[in-house]
């Protein structure tokens, strides 16, 4: 079936192209309804990835956070009209040890191949997770981002030692906020401190036990483990600050993406015997766990709806540009495209 694909062909320029979806391939066909813009999409849209990366990847459809409705399923797993969250990670092999999102052979939507800015998306049946009507679809649009936090928290649970009295999260943006919400749901016994730069943003973390400005952290404040949700140029400062304020043998979970290598104080990492682990992306299990947590802790949806920014109905390419430009000028929050293509 001919399918309209909206590919970014150059920074700030989307163009219409078509592909042909094979209805006999065993894949299901989903019509996107709610798509959410991520920083990674913005780096392509604004052309701030290195020129050689842009040259290699474009033209490509952006967006890896989204949900839609099943319109065709030759496997009989779903009914037409079922809401499903789409999983962008697309493994081509299974490994006993290495998770699907770390296999170097796995492909990822809007990074290795076309993302969700399409009229229809063809996916393997295990690349979608059902979503019932009780969950707000606008919030569920960025479940992928949420599942990355859930993935990191599940890894934290398996890696970090058992003393978890005080946990710190660095970063007062979307990722820090989401990680904090789910940390509280998954580890309610621990005290949670948030470290950020913007008092306005920090005030949103009403469920945390305390918040601190990174320019004004008490010298004697110590934490057992930490999450870095900062990324970019500020990664270096955040990670070294964590190293200063963490107890020996604590773990540091790094989630923030940085375009360039980050110098860190390895001497103190050695002296304190710290464990630093990275987390990136997520797999099917993380999506299932995330949806389970939505149901188990309904208050989470309320907290997440606080970071829904603009909702923009998309009927044409001008609307797509409007959504991306609006997203650039926000201070916090997720821009959601109500996809009507």
């Amino acid at each position: 079936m001919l399918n309209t694909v909206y590919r970014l062909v150059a920074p700030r320029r989307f163009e219409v192209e078509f592909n042909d979806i094979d209805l006999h391939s065993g894949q299901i066909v989903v019509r996107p309804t709610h798509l959410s813009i991520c920083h990674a999409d913005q780096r392509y849209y604004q052309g701030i990835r290195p020129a050689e990366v842009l040259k290699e990847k474009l033209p490509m459809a952006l967006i890896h956070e989204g949900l839609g409705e099943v319109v065709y399923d030759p496997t009989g797993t779903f009914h037409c009209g079922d809401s499903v969250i789409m999983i962008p990670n697309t493994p081509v092999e299974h490994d006993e040890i290495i998770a699907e999102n770390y296999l170097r052979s796995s492909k990822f939507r809007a990074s290795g191949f076309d993302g969700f800015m399409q009229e229809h998306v063809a996916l393997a049946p295990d690349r979608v997770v059902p979503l019932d009507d009780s969950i707000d679809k606008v919030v569920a649009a960025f479940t992928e981002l949420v599942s990355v936090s859930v993935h990191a928290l599940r890894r934290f649970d398996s890696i970090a030692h058992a003393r978890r009295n005080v946990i710190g999260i660095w970063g007062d943006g979307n990722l820090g906020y989401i990680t904090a919400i789910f940390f509280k749901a998954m580890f309610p016994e621990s005290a949670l401190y948030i470290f950020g730069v913007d008092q306005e943003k920090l005030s949103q973390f009403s469920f945390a036990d305390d918040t601190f400005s990174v320019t004004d952290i008490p010298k004697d404040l110590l934490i057992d483990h930490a999450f870095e949700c900062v990324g970019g140029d500020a990664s270096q400062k955040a990670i070294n600050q964590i190293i200063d304020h963490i107890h020996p043998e604590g773990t540091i979970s790094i989630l923030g993406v940085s375009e360039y290598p980050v110098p860190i104080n390895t001497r103190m990492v050695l002296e304190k015997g710290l464990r630093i682990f990275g987390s990136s992306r997520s797999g099917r299990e993380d999506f299932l766990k995330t949806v389970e947590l939505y149901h188990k802790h309904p208050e989470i949806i309320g907290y997440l709806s606080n970071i829904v920014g603009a909702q923009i109905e998309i009927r044409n390419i001008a609307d797509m540009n409007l959504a991306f430009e609006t997203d650039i000028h926000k201070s916090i929050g997720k821009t959601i495209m109500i996809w009507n293509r």
Partner: protein
Amino acid sequence: MVFGVILAGGIGSRMGNVEKPKQYLKVGNKPIIIHTIEKFFMHDAFTKLIVLCPKQWIENTRNLVKKYLGDGAEHIAVLEGGSTRNETIMNSIAYIEKEYGIDDDTLIVTHDSVRPFLTYRIIEENIRYGMEYGAVDTVIPATDTIVESQDGKVIASVPDRTRMYQGQTPQTFKAKKLKELYLSLSEEEKKILTDASKIFVIKGEQVYLVEGEVFNIKITYPYDLRVAESLIQDQKSGK
């Protein structure tokens, strides 16, 4: 009930030196008509899809449908078209009456078989507004200035472009109403019909506009075929 009516009745005399009607030419690696049928096939609102084509192409069309849609072919009836576009539509209504019966809300979404680039949204809005208003036409704002001439030699008028639209398809109608209006037309009135929405217009009925797409092109000339071919792009290999 909603029916998809795909009009493939034309012989394609404008296509130049090709033997097949244009809807049977391949774009990508499938015949154009199959691309078009697949777009309708994907929409679960349709009780049945009705494809109307020239008599001598019926068997070939059935074979193509079976080849490309497999078991889905049961969902598609291939019938003979009529002598004109509107007669072809009347054939589809006659089939619906016979097989399913017809009532005030029976809706037909009629579409040119040579417009394979229509989108889910266009179909969806045709059905939604068709149900609500009874008659829908798919249009895009005119980009070229439209010039009217009575004799083909000099301009008679230049209508305000901001009020001009170019008609595409689908066109969607309440089938019973369409049939009633069509049968009430004189032969003279029938002669000046270039499409079905005009039946409503000349009878003073309202036709609602649905926004089409610039790329929802009608493959009419060899040039269009090349444009269509170039629009279908898989991503660069090696990604």
